[in-house]
């Protein structure tokens, strides 16, 4: 062997060692591999879909996201509610008679009716940031008072309606319910009101409430958001370097599961990219 410098290897053909190397047995892939690869290439072209493995990884990612979301919702659903938790702001109601009431029933429902009629208008005046959106819906906010959500078993009845509204600083915080629980509570409320034959909400108001609920729920829950196919799809839009930086961010936030899912998808999406050493452990 006369080769003494890598330059020998860098010559055309790799010099003497290159010649010797080419005399080694020339392994070829077996036919079954040829068939498998060509079939996969054909399937990919004809189906126009990503190959099975990639769909599988997205499917698993989605399923994992759903499981986490369900777990999170279940957990939040079992947390005791604090006094400060209130319903989301709603817009002005309109009165819709549903069924006639006799005198006793009317008297029995009179107070709740007034409360119910007044409450949504005041709820539509959330403190601080939520105020502008609700301004149109609540035409006379100064004549109402925010009403706390009734939690039937543990809460006292709502205070009687007062003619003066508290200052905005005294208003309850925008929301502390996760979206789904608030939806359930809202449904319960709705049915209560319907039973009483009194109040229902305008569609626009419901939409406003939903928007507020969504934004508030995300605002609180963002640090523990479950991974989902939506987030993974969003990751796919990132440039490779940004994507890796995002995975690192997830790690720093303690969201290791999501970081792993995201990195696995990264490897599938950019198979030619090198995974940095500090992230490789996620793949093991």
């Amino acid at each position: 062997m006369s080769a003494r410098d890598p330059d020998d290897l860098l010559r055309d053909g790799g010099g003497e060692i290159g010649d010797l190397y080419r005399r080694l047995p020339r392994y070829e892939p077996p036919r079954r591999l040829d068939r498998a690869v060509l079939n996969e290439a054909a399937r990919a072209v004809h189906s126009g879909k990503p190959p099975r493995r990639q769909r599988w990884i997205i499917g698993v990612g989605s399923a994992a996201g759903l499981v986490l979301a369900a777990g999170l919702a279940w957990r939040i659903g079992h947390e005791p509610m604090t006094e400060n938790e209130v319903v989301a702001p709603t817009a002005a109601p309109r009165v819709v008679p549903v069924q006639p009431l006799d005198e006793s029933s009317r008297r029995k429902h009179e107070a709740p009716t007034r409360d119910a009629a007044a409450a949504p208008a005041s709820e539509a005046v959330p403190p601080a940031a939520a105020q502008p959106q609700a301004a149109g819906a609540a035409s006379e906010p100064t004549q109402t008072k925010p009403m706390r959500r009734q939690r039937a078993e543990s809460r006292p009845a709502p205070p009687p309606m007062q003619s003066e509204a508290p200052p905005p600083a005294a208003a309850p915080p925008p929301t502390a319910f996760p979206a789904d629980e608030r939806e359930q509570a809202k449904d319960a409320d709705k049915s209560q009101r319907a039973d009483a034959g009194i109040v229902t909400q305008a569609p626009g108001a419901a939409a406003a409430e939903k928007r507020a609920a969504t934004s508030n729920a995300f605002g609180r829950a963002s640090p523990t958001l479950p991974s989902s196919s939506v987030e993974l799809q969003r990751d796919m839009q990132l440039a490779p370097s940004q994507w890796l930086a995002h995975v690192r961010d997830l790690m720093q936030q303690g969201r290791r599961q999501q970081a792993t899912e995201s990195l696995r998808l990264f490897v599938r999406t950019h198979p030619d990219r090198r995974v940095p050493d500090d992230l490789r452990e996620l793949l093991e």
Partner: protein
Amino acid sequence: MGSDQTDEELMLAYAGGDLLAFETLYRRHRGTLYRFLMRTLRHRADADELFQDTWSRLIAARERYRPEAKFTTFLLQIAHNLVVDRFRRLKPQASDEETEAVLRNLDAPESDQPERALTEFEQRRRLQIALEELPEEQRVAFLLRIESGLGLDEIGEITGAGRETVKSRLRYALARIRARFAS
């Protein structure tokens, strides 16, 4: 079909749905890729698995391929990433196996005989043993150079190492191979 087209053109054609372009591309690179994997991993079953996986990933990523990247580099980078992952996973158990294989080879009767003029068979055998004994990074650099014909910069791009590092790996690889021939 497509024999006068470059690899990059063929890859783009395949991304556009031309299956014959892929077949041409596959024929051109199947042997090189397989030998790279076979000599790097040293086990046929592993080489088979990663060979298929490499092409699968290439197929999956076909729409993201940009001709700025040389096709060979693109393909070998995928393969190299898979190899690195495999080594990381197998490292503890591979080292025992490796040690035993090296010891077996060292104990082979031919190597005990002091032959000045090595037969061609012996030369090939020694080269094969020397390749197996090389540390992973040196072996990969050597194979990318000799088997795939890549330059220092391309090897660096694939392995994530700098030009000088690649050169140094090749130098060490060469020294070890020479040592094997001198023994």
